[in-house]
């Protein structure tokens, strides 16, 4: 029996590592931007292109920056949740319309509802690169001082909203 003890122990350890690995999502790469100031940008607004918007316009508020596009299928999954969130009026939601055509983006919002306080258009995806966007939809939680506090990759699930995003929003709004 004892001659099997060591191989068995090694096997169990490998099994444990593999099992934990199964539960990890390789698409969720931790963002190096957490805890850093939100990268600066100045972009035209989707509905009023002659009025630029910068991240500094939101200083003093806790807000969510949601990266979306009309060509993004999984954005449709999270969209009803965002519409609901906007109705509750707990946290301002700014949309970053990523590599989209403004006409199609506007039609999409008309069809599915517009939860955004405003949307800005990142036509060539440069601001997306500055924010390390690699899979739309992505959502950044930014605090009063303009520091990124949390990043959600992929569609927001009701669970992620209730257990992670909203508690953090409330804590940041209090401080």
């Amino acid at each position: 029996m004892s001659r099997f003890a060591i191989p068995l122990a090694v096997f169990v350890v490998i099994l444990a590592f593999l099992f934990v690995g199964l539960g990890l999502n390789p698409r969720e790469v931790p963002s190096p931007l957490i805890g850093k100031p939100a990268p600066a940008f100045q972009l035209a607004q989707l509905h009023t292109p002659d009025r630029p918007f910068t991240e500094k316009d939101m200083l003093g508020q806790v807000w969510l920056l949601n990266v979306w596009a009309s060509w993004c299928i999984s954005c449709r999954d999270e969209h009803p949740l965002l519409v609901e969130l906007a109705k509750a009026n707990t946290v301002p939601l700014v949309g970053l319309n990523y590599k989209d055509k403004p006409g199609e983006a506007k039609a999409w919002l008309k069809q599915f509802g517009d939860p955004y306080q405003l949307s800005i258009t990142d036509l060539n995806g440069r601001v997306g690169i500055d924010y390390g966007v690699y899979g739309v939809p992505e959502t950044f939680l930014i605090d009063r001082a303009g520091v990124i506090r949390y990043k959600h990759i992929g569609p927001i699930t009701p669970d992620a909203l209730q257990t992670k995003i909203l508690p953090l929003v409330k804590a940041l709004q209090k401080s």
Partner: protein
Amino acid sequence: MTRFLLVLVLALAPLLAFAKDAVPTEQDPVAAKRAVGLAEQLRCLVCQNQSIAESNAELAVDLRRQINEQIAAGKSDGEIVDFMVQRYGEFVLYRPPFKATTVLLWLGPALLLLAGLWTLRRALRQRQRAIEDRPLSDDERARAGRLLGGEPPQ
């Protein structure tokens, strides 16, 4: 002969397409080589097992354009890699830096090799000892003698 030439030309024709694909928009061959070298070091986050040089994902195309622009702007290779790491994290590096969190990653294979060698040595010694420690019994000695066709060895 003409036919042979025609076949040769046709056979080489696809190479033209290949060349067009691999060379970035830059005209300068040195800069182009640098751009490809950098793109090969960086992982595409959309299709994670490809570099941004190999990937045709839109993000990879955008990042290749970033690299070209930054080379044109006179940035060094280190600055361009830093630009990517600041935005996408060290995950984009196919060659991660050696630091506390990556020690196991870098030294793991060597450790496994050492552990393997140690196990092998132990197993070989044990076997040798097992052989040495087991003298022949009288019956076996007699049988060996019969098989060898002579007197039983002493």
